[in-house]
């Protein structure tokens, strides 16, 4: 990979370990990120968010306890993350959840199941400066 990573750190909040592994592998392989930080629950994300900054957050809606929607609302209400690009991943069938996510402030959504290519493309679209880098 010649191009430097687009994003320094991406937060992935998802309760399935296999999904996290998949997302990590896809992002790292495409070289779009320097560091992938994983959170296996909304709570874990809450622990990380106040102190850390991320170039992008990928959030699964349907998680137990603190679900993705609550996390998004929390992030948009906080100083640190009100502008962090947010990609919501949700099950294909739950349109309602997806719409809620967008209305609460997420920037884009990706329906499961998705390919690694689709994920990387969605990430590139969300990060400012992506187009120019590509063209170069």
């Amino acid at each position, binding site marked *: 990979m010649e191009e430097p990573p687009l994003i320094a750190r991406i937060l992935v909040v998802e*309760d*399935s*370990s*296999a*999904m996290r*592994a*998949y997302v990590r*592998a*896809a992002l790292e*392989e495409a070289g779009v990120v320097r560091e992938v930080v994983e959170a296996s629950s*909304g*709570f*874990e994300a*809450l*622990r990380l968010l*106040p*102190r850390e900054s991320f170039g992008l957050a990928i959030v699964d*809606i*349907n998680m*137990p*306890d*603190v*679900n*993705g*929607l*609550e*996390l998004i*609302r*929390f992030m948009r*209400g*906080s100083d640190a993350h009100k502008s962090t690009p947010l990609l919501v991943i949700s*099950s294909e069938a*739950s349109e*309602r*959840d997806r719409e*809620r996510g967008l*209305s*609460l402030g997420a920037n884009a959504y990706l329906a*499961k*199941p*998705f*390919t*690694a290519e689709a994920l990387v493309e969605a990430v590139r679209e969300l990060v400012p400066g992506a187009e120019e880098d590509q063209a170069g």
Partner: protein
Amino acid sequence: MTGGGDEGDSVRDEFVAEAQEIIEALSRDLLLLDHGQKEGNPDPDLVNSVFRGVHTLKGIAGMFGFADLGEVAHVLEDLLDQLRLGRVELTQEVLDVLFEGVEVLQRLLSAGPEAPEADLDGFRGAVQAVLDLGEEAPSDFGAYDLDTGVLSVLTEYEEHRLRTNIDQGVPLYRLRVRFGLTSIDSDLEELKARAKPIAEIITYLPSMEGGDDDSIDLEVLLASRVDVAELRDALCTASDAELEPVGSRGAGASGHTMTPPPPDEPTTSHPPASPPAAPKRAEERTGAPPAPPRDVGADSLSVRSVAKTVRVDIGKLDHLMNVVGELAIIRSGVGRVLDRVRGNPEFRALATELHRIHRGFERHLDDLQDGILDVRMVPLGQTFDRLARAVRQVSREHGKDVRLQVSGADTEVDKLIVEELTDPLLHIIRNAIDHGIETSSDREAAGKPATGTLALNAYQKGNHVVIEVEDDGSGMDAERILASAVERGAITVEAGEEMQRPEKLGLIFLPGVSTAEAITDLSGRGVGMDVVKTHIARLGGVVDVHSELGIGTKFTITLPITLAIISALVVRVAGRTYCIPLTVVQEALVLDPASVRRVEGHEVITLRGATLPICRLDGLFGLQQPAGASPKEYVVVTSLGQRRLGLVVQGLEGQQDIIIKPLGKTLSDVKGFAGATDLGDQRVVLVLDAPSLLEEVLAGPEVRAAGLGATS
């Protein structure tokens, strides 16, 4: 993914491991749900758990090449969705479909990715059949003083739980707590534990105001029938925690609610019993409060699965075991050097110090070994859950009413053994339900309770684990078994006449022997009890059977606890060295040639009043004694299950920890050896396979007839 093979594989492995865990959790939850449904109060949390598990599976299966699995999960998810939204009632039929679904999921997962397309039509049909009875009328939230902010962040499921509670008139509360960021996990677990018996937590809302860098404020929405003061006592343990009821508004919908429009028109028919239905506000109903703590024996297992566990690749454990094995050999080597140093008076001081060091090494090594072995151990409960599912399924298939009793589910066994145990146990259970336990009417006619009992019992006994499968069915007819064996030519009529009852029952382990009128091919594989026996023998164990006509049958499986490092007795036979696993060794004594007698052509001695058959290993193995061999001989008394055999050897060299390594396929036709081991000093030594030796030597009908080999 275009990733390199390795990376793709390890991500896929991650999926398989996660999927397996999910399926096991589904199985446990369904069993509990089944139990709850029979008692009349199924726990909605369980339905949610099952839904969640299936939903996760659906989401990830397709991405890792398990398209069929994803589809089945999708189908199940639809059903579960209807269940949790109260549109379909949880009946035994629905549970049947769910159980079948889990079986299908397991099969598909085991078949691997890109397996040939499975025929799922039958299953889909079954699901559709139960789905075709669905209806509901949702309530609205206007009656409650919940702000739009809260409602907007509820997922569909959480909304449903909220709705259900409202319909059932369960009061809502808001609990504000503060958790320190570093202790958030344990604080959460604690809160959940305290809340579980008295309330249902609907959701957690992280609050934006309040909190600081080190802590976070949360608003917890919950429903509970318990009195406010008691709730406060239980949940507001921190000084800054606050609990408030969510007040209800006056009648009439307000514009604040954000509920989606009701999907269906409320129907006029009234659904039977439990599911929350009619659109009423806060009306008292005898709905189901959160179920009391579960007590179905799988309890300790459910808690454990939530606790701190690490997934370990068994290959890594094997590697560690090998390293420990090498260390054990080194330790023996150090011991030998120590002995030599000791023998020299010049090195007295050195010897003492070396001895001290050696002792320390030994202690820690034992600890390490125990620790690693412990990691390999898994509770049998896992297997028992799987069997419980099968019991349910087979009972229904054959129209038998069977109750399963389990004890000792937390008895631990090496993971590799556990995996091999499922099949033989399944087979025994299927036979017990199909042939053993009678139909309810037959049972009542015989004066037995209509419900048959199948008991699964496991416990540790010394270095072994004993698993019992007992039924209170019709028992086995020894004469019919004998007749069947003779008919199939497995034994001669004469040999049969000389048999005692236990030996006759033991004939079921010969291939092809069966007492059923028609050989019902339950597993579709045409396997008989002989396969069960071979399977268990492979694990180094034995299986015994006891039965009384009209009363019941009990199978007893005795297994070594672990296959990995074992203690062995090193012996010499005709100048060669062999190892005998200590797990089967009862004792060793000097053989007094005068005490050997012959009974029915076999050599025996008397040990504490009982007859013990003996076997000269040099004769059995065809080994010549080296010239000048000492005439002194020893008898190593081995015992397994109910039988004993004395092995005659020419030397006892002591005890050693060894790792048994398998012999290659080329030697698979050689009888009597469990494998070989490296004793250090470059000595490769064969390890005797006690069960197969016992079998071989004690198998002759003459031996049986004389009642030899039975434990005193």
